[in-house]
């Protein structure tokens, strides 16, 4: 890492930041003011300020002072933080793959049995948790019977978090959904794709009890669920291995159930082959997938809210790529040709 002129500024800046944080923190907890919410006008002014400073960086670059990586870091942080307290909304266009997934869910009858598999951990929760919440909302409104399980140790715990959140909403409280009747959490089972393989025979062999230790057969929702042939739809949320790929290769290919998936943005590219070949009926990719899913199901939540941070920081990255190329074309390319001449 580069070492600029530090120590002279570092300590005062640190103290200033710490003091400011402390004051805001104490003030917030003593309830001197409400939540931080910037009005639309103020938000626009702030955005323009950021844009202006980016232009200034571009000018400095043209003067021969390219920005270092820490400058990039700073702008990413600003671009993510600012929109969190802004009151702007953004129009969300639904892509075909999300639409397909939604159509698949829509086609299911009331009371359909849906297997929701949670293959991620808190690390990827930012992307997948909003999908999980939207999915539960939709499933409960449509009266689906949801069977939850996980191939990652923390998956079922993540499912429980989403469930608790959704079920605490007034709209679902009045439905008085019952554990074991309307939904069940089978918990985690180790063994990766082999768990899927064995579930093809009998779910019970892999999950003799549910997450809480209740025997499989004493749960009405799954008492009659032998294996995948009793499942109408499978919804997989995954962040890596084992995940959607294994569910497709071992599950869908061999046992032929219908499956839709929500993936982290990174994983999504690798899933397109399965989408095209029809092994997956639809896919939600990353935060925008989550936001689109919220849009099409009309449950606007976290995904929609966070899209502003996303878009803003995206623009910042794009601008920095432009700045980087300007700097490269202006200086380094010239230098490279000079070298060639000398040689």
């Amino acid at each position, binding site marked *: *890492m580069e070492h600029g002129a530090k120590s002279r500024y570092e*300590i005062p800046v*640190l*103290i200033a930041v*710490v003091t400011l*944080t*402390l004051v*805001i*923190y*104490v003030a*917030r*907890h003593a309830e001197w003011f409400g*939540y*931080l*919410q910037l009005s639309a006008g103020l938000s626009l002014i702030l955005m323009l300020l950021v844009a202006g400073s980016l232009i200034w960086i571009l000018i400095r670059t043209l003067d021969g002072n390219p920005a270092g990586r*820490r400058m990039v*870091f700073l702008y*990413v*942080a600003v671009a*993510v*933080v600012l929109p*969190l*307290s802004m009151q702007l909304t953004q129009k969300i266009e639904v892509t075909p793959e999300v639409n397909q997934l939604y159509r698949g869910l829509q086609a299911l009858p009331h009371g359909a049995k849906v297997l929701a598999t949670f293959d991620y951990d808190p*690390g*990827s*929760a*930012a*992307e997948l948790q909003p999908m999980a919440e939207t999915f539960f909302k939709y499933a409960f409104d449509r009266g689906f019977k949801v069977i939850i399980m996980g191939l990652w*140790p923390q998956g079922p715990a993540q499912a429980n978090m989403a469930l608790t959140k959704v079920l605490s909403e007034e709209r679902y409280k009045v439905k008085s959904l019952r554990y074991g009747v309307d939904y069940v959490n089978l918990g*985690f089972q*180790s*063994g990766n794709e082999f768990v899927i393989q064995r579930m093809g025979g009998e779910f019970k062999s892999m999950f*003799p009890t549910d997450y809480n230790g209740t025997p499989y057969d004493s749960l009405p929702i799954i008492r009659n669920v032998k294996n995948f042939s009793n499942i109408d739809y499978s919804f997989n949320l995954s962040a890596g291995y084992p995940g959607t790929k294994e569910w497709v*290769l071992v599950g869908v290919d061999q046992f032929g159930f219908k499956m839709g998936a929500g993936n*982290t*943005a*990174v994983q*999504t*590219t690798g899933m397109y*082959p399965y989408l*095209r*070949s029809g092994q997956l009926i639809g896919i939600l*990719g*990353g*935060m*925008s997938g989550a936001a689109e899913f919220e849009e099409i199901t009309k449950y606007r939540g976290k995904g929609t809210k*966070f899209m502003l*941070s*996303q878009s803003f*920081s*995206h623009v910042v*990255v794009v601008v920095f790529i432009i700045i980087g190329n300007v700097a490269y074309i202006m200086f380094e390319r010239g230098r490279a040709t000079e070298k060639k001449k000398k040689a």
Partner: protein
Amino acid sequence: MKRSTYIVMAVMALLFAVSWYFKAATYHGNVMSPLVAGFMITLAAFLTLAIISFVYQDNPFYKFAEHLFVGISAAFWMCQSFWSTIVGNLIPRISTGLSKYFGQPYRDEPWNFVYWLPVILGILLLLRLSSKIGWVSRWALAFIVGTTAGLSFIRYLRSDFMEQISSTMVPLLAAGNSGESLLSNITLSATGPFVAMLTNWVIFLGVICGIVYFFFSKEHTGLFGRASRVGIWILMITFGAAFGYTVMGRITLLVGRLTFLYKDWLGLIS
């Protein structure tokens, strides 16, 4: 240590205490006592900040967080695999007494004795600690590598080789379109038939050229060389696209962490 280090430490300790106090005062839940909960959320917030500080430069807070992380997580996975593998999969097959102790139903299956094999190999592996008969640990390694090779051979042949070939064989013209009707109707509508056909052609030629790029034993010259160059372009598009697509996912992660700091800890946003 320098005096400034002590000052920073003291300020951090003070901040920690303030946060602990306020978080404990505002906590309402039933899993933990407010004092523990206040401590835990403050700790989580400070550790989050400690890790983020690494992008600026290495510092004592990051070092602390890093060492804490290594210790906790190493033990985490040891416990996790002990309970799920040894207690979950091994003990119910080899010992009725221990199964009972751990509250696991004993699985009485005919081939259970085979499960002694990995136990023996595991013990062989531990013999590595002895310098005299350490070489027997290689038997365990050989077993593992053999398993890996055998399983991967079939798995990848099926899913990465055969499956990808069979799904690339699709008609290049949309069904029922014998060319003429298609050519009279060229639009660049994203959902139109011409683009669908174009996509099929791109995939077909792209896969071909991409495979050509990977040829090792043929000089990449002439037509072959040109195909391989197109292949590398296709790969570059793939990499660029995947990278660009990923940027979003990665930013989401930061949104997630900063929401934790701003909402769950500081309580600044709703």
